[in-house]
């Protein structure tokens, strides 16, 4: 079960973390797994994910003293905006070239799915899901990874990406439908290709 912070808790962490190591520890424990999972899905390789996560937190530490809390979700949105920017810079440095990753390069995967599941299977599943997400438009990739792995709510994603909340919800639903059709395709289900093209058109318009 994923934990959420109340507005008071979030405000407390935002105000105390720069001066109180205990508050910083709480902030770190709360956000580290989410940042790492989000970054790992975006970059794939465990080493890159660690490097980027470290960069994100260094920037958080550097900026915490100047951060002003401005209401519910502000801290989360600020932290994930840093993470999002780091990912964007990462791909800019790499010029968008995708690397073929071996399973050894992938991060360890935690799973709460029922049934037998070994490390190798989890890594393969992670790689397959990444591959599916990579087929989406960059915006939908971003929204789905922020929602599922960064565990952000729609209004927080909207703030990170500077979008309207309804636009985020729409992208999320369309992206999932798109993903589902590819997922069914891989697992042997029927693929409504016409709908996929229609989705792309709608996405371009939005």
């Amino acid at each position, binding site marked *: *079960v*994923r934990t*959420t912070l109340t507005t008071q808790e979030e405000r407390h962490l935002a105000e105390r973390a*720069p*001066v*109180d*190591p*205990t508050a*910083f*520890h709480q902030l*770190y424990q709360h956000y*580290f*797994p989410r940042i*790492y*999972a989000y970054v*790992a*899905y975006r970059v794939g390789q*465990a080493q890159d*994910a*660690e490097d980027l*996560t*470290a960069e994100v*937190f*260094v920037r958080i*530490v*550097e900026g*915490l*003293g100047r951060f002003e809390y401005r209401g519910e979700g502000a801290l989360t949105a600020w932290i994930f905006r840093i993470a999002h920017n780091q990912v964007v810079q990462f791909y800019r440095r790499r010029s968008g070239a995708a690397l073929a990753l071996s399973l050894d390069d*992938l*991060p*360890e*995967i*935690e*799973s*709460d*799915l*029922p049934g037998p599941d070994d490390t190798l299977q*989890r890594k393969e*599943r*992670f790689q397959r*899901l990444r591959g599916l997400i990579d087929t989406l438009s960059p915006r939908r990739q971003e929204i*789905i990874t922020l*929602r*599922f*792995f960064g*565990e952000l709510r*729609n209004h927080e994603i909207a703030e990170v990406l500077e979008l309207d909340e309804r636009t985020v*919800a*729409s992208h*999320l*639903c369309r992206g*999932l439908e798109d*993903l*589902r059709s590819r*997922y069914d395709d891989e*697992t042997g289900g029927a693929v409504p290709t016409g709908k996929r093209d229609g989705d792309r058109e709608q996405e371009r318009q939005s």
Partner: protein
Amino acid sequence: MNENHTHDKALLREIERRLTEGRPTGDPLLDELAGTLPRADADFQADLEQRLLARLDIARPGTQEEHTGMTANTLTIDTPTRRGLSSLTMAAAVVAVLVIVGLLVFMTRLPAGPEPFASGIIGIDQDDTTPDTDDVTATLDEVYLQATAVITTATAWAAEREDTLIPAISGPLVPVVITLGEILPGQPVDADALAVTWWPPEILPDGVYGDPRDLTGLYAADFIAAYQPLTESRLAESPEDIARIFLLTPTVLPPTVVPPEALPVQATSTPVSGDPSPVRIPLQASPLPPTIPPSFTATPVPTPTTGGPSG
């Protein structure tokens, strides 16, 4: 459109439930997405947190926040930096400039008449009332030299004064527990009489304590003067341990002094002459040996088990 909207709302609710409750929904895609989470190496996570906490300290110059757990107790003081000239140096410079300007103005008025030279204050012969060029040049040189001396003196004074205002210590400091009052041997350490100070690591004695709570229940094994750091070697866990320390000390005692066989010392022995120390360890001097070989090495005296003087 309306149907699509309803479908979206249902899907969003399903996502929310899957993420917050952590239970599989039966939708394989949602379950795989929500249930396949990359997990960082635990060592990496812990190391990064330590590095960030250290960085947080650097970002907070002058703070005295203590870290808990595995984090090092460190204090960082801003390294004093001189940004431009201080007010003292500036004042000295202004005074010096005023002196120079005043003298120069004075010198420009020299040719106005012979009177200023009559007193001979600037090196002109009394009988020669017309200042020649060499005399004026020499006088100007003298003025410049005097002005330079004034500036040098003023700057040196200001710089010296400035140094006394800048903290001599900079860099990371570590907490050191000291005692506010003297502690006699055998006395328990009083937590209320302790204080934490911050020392540069390079001058730390061995075995200092950083947290007064670590000293709870310990006894002074030695006389500890006020404002001295408490170290492991000067403390014991019980009065009996203090007696044991004394029993082992013959390795450092002069060979003519041996501990008596009356040990262990009773912790409730009567204080002598108002001395509040509950433990007193009398020492006996044995007769001097006729000769002490130069290569003499003292050896520990075995712990006496029954009565009878040792040695």
